């Protein structure tokens, strides 16, 4: 019985993620347009784009290898699995023992590895520039993310995400300096990982400034659709993570009734909307930085994360 219930929640979450992800991207775009006094596309535009793209034929560069054709599906699958392991509206997911927070970070690493390889596969200069910069950013963002994981798991005494969420919901958290540092660092990492302003611009195709878009420049048709979907899922994943760890209210726990799930779902959507709105406001108010400033930005995130973990190490007595 318990197994069936967990499996049901897991399936529901998977479907929910797939349904919500493009909408979230559309929402952020639409809020940004409103802030710039533009009318902007409707929220449902990303769904239409995806449907249009998967029905088109793929135009593949002549010397593309199988890596180029397989990579989109690998990126999509790893991102989806990673996202499905983050509690969104309820804990007690069937597959949560399969991967803890460190493994989720590493799964995103696998997706990035595949994407960077795909960027190099055709042998154009733009693909290379994108891959090279993406790996430079990752070389700082991933350790920063792991330091945040360290901080959270030292606090909760566990790297399991549902344990961390349960702990942070509980009474013995209090105000902690480490947590404040970790949330700032996590937001910085999330901005960098999702190719957002000021690190990268998701809307640009200006040759010398693009990073993520440079890697996927040659993609078309269903391949592009799958990669776009994965990018939306990744944004959703980071929002869910921030929501589940730093705004853990309303998460339905194991064994609660139907209303708890309904409340969980409602608060989850509200959290996403809040995060999306804040992201749009932040992006509108900031200018993109030079590529080699990114290392300072992420270096600061890494230092914050390390400091947060160090504080916890020092403050723990035997």
């Amino acid at each position, binding site marked *: 019985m318990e197994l069936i219930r967990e499996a049901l929640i897991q399936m529901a979450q998977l479907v929910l993620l797939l349904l919500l992800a493009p909408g979230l991207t559309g929402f952020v775009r639409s809020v940004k347009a409103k802030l710039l006094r533009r009318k902007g596309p409707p929220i449902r535009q990303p769904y239409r784009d995806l449907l249009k793209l998967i029905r088109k034929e793929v135009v593949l560069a002549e010397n593309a290898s199988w890596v180029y054709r397989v990579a989109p599906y690998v990126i999509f699958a790893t991102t989806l699995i990673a996202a499905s392991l983050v509690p969104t509206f309820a804990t007690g997911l069937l597959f949560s023992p399969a991967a803890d927070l460190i493994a989720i970070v590493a799964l995103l690493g696998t997706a990035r590895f595949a994407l960077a390889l795909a960027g190099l596969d055709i042998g154009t200069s733009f693909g290379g520039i994108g891959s090279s910069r993406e790996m430079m950013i990752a070389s700082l963002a991933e350790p920063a993310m792991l330091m945040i994981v360290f901080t959270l798991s030292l606090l909760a005494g566990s790297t399991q995400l549902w344990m961390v969420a349960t702990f942070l919901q509980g009474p013995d958290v209090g105000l902690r300096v480490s947590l404040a540092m970790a949330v700032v660092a996590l937001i910085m990492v999330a901005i960098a990982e999702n190719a957002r302003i000021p690190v990268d611009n998701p809307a640009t195709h200006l040759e010398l400034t693009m990073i993520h878009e440079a890697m996927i*420049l040659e993609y078309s048709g269903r391949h592009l659709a799958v990669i776009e979907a994965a990018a939306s899922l990744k944004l959703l994943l980071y929002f869910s993570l921030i929501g589940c760890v730093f705004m853990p209210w309303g998460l339905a726990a194991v064994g609660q009734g139907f209303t708890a799930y309904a409340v969980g779902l409602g608060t989850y959507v509200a959290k996403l909307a809040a995060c999306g709105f804040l992201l749009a406001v932040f992006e509108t108010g900031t200018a993109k930085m030079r590529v080699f400033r990114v290392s300072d930005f992420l270096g600061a995130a890494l230092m914050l994360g390390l400091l947060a*973990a160090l504080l916890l190490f*020092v403050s723990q007595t035997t």
Partner: protein
Amino acid sequence: MALTVLLLCAGAWLATSVVALAAARRSTATSLVYALALVVGAVALGAALDALIYSSDSIRAAVLPIGLPWLGAHFRLDALSALFLVVVNLGGLTASLYGLGYGRHEQAPGRVLPFFPAFLAGMNLVVLADDAFTFLLTWEFMSLASWALVMAHHRQPGNAKAGYIYLLMASFGTLALLLAFGLLAGPAGGYAFDAIRDSEPAAGMSAAVLALALIGAGSKSGLVPLHVWLPLAHPAAPSHVSALMSGVMTKVAVYGFVRIVFDLLGPPEWWWGAVVLTLGGISAVLGVLYALMQHDLKRLLAYHTVENIGIIFIGLGLALAFRANDMQVGAALALTAALFHVFNHSLFKSLLFYGAGAVLGATGERDMERLGGLIHRMPLTAIAFLAGSTAISALPPFNGFVSEWLTFQAVLLSPHFPQWVLKFIVPAVGAMLALSAALAAGCFVKAFGATFLGRARTAAAQRARETDALSLAAMFLLVLLCLAAGILPGYFMDALAPVSQQLFDARLQPQHLHAWLTIVPVLESRSSYNGLLLFVMIAGAAWLAAWVIHRGASHALRRAPAWDCGFPDANPATQYTAGSFAQPIRRVFGSVVFRAREHVYMPPPGQMQPARMHVHMRDLAWDTLYAPLDVLVGFAADRFNRVQWWTIRAYLSLVFGSVVVLLLVLAIWN
């Protein structure tokens, strides 16, 4: 039984060496020697596996009447040596299989064949040795055999220098080990390991032994700053020997360290852990940064060995710190993580060197800037190399991730150390481990991308052919093992349990009993990982997405020229190269670590010369440590050079004076 079999195997390899010496000129010698080595290796691997898994609690010992007359040659097979014998013989088995194919292209088989089986025998005997004399003798035998293999292509530029530096560093390392064993044996001179275990170490002595063991084993395994010989010597050897040196011989050095420090030296003190952790963390980060700056494929792999040895030493340092604080669970976890990484690294590093060897054989090139597009010409090698790259970059669902995950778990168990130094060092080392893992992924995107993806940069890369079936068989055997250790890590961790039982009297809970083969190092509420489930889910989700889209929407596909923002250029030189790929990372880290400076020469307006950019990088380990030493040795040699021109009277008075001084010292001493 197993010990006898292993000793007989070592004998068989030595006999094969003799056969190879006799038959080196015949055309069938290559196949004969590698086939014999393969068969013997399979038997030895079977014996080692049997000793590790089925009868790990029984210890077998033997004394052979060779060597020092009053000592004999002691050999012993316990869980620790059984594990390292599995690593050695698995590496030896695949290297022999690979050599069966790859060795046919060898220009001078007479310089490789006699030393290859001897090298295998040497590594086996080091792990089996149970007294200081046998250990040092076989250690030196192993070093010399591998030195001969490094010098196989001694006429190629750079190889003679590599061999020379290797020989110097190897003798220096052995000297340190000799002194370490001298201190361990004490004035009574009990050189058998049993006698050393029983003796009580003096207070200041264990610190000296730790330092000497770090120098001796660290120089062989490539711990920074003793790594300088490794990226020169490992790539110089034929590729299957490079794989053995990088994947296996460095592990024998790790064995030496574990045997001396964990087994012979007695209970550790907490600061040992701090020293080992720091060295490991520095090696991990510097190793991968050096690797990122390379464009020689084999040298890049050799620098990654430095990185991975660093990761192993991080695990060992944590184990020492836990052990010193009587935290048995943490000690068992950290040791298991380190040993699992030993096993994993031997798998994927051998695999990657075989891949690099296949590329070298097909194109004659090791320089990535002259390769490219090989995935079209060597599709199977590309798959194997990609699997190895994924594994070494610590990405799930492959095996490299599992051992790094375990190391992270050990780091997270450690905030309860009472010592303040450890409280600061452990999180910093954790950050270094995370940094090195992220940089490794970047490095292997570069290595795989520049070599196999894109367009061919030279005619040699354009003409490459897929390598032979036997080499491919060796590579895919390792791919399967990498995947198996990644998705079924529980079984492999259980096989490591006897070792931590032997050294620490503590082990992790049995892993294969957990539901769905999840691994749970400590508690389920603390952390768990299931590679099998992740692998199945990723594969399932990817396949389902592809199936739905292909069936439901579109599967049309058209080939067209690349778009490249409207400016495609047919010249393959317009691609990103390995150097340009690493440039952003060099800008971020290199200015500090390598003092990297870029000099750009812009021709004046109106002139048609090309603009040029030079990057100047310094190797600080070499510049600050080895270059002054070199100057010092040169200075001293100059001064002593005068002795050469003395008269016979002066020599005689020198000898007489020395004897008098020695006698005086002895008289005062007594």
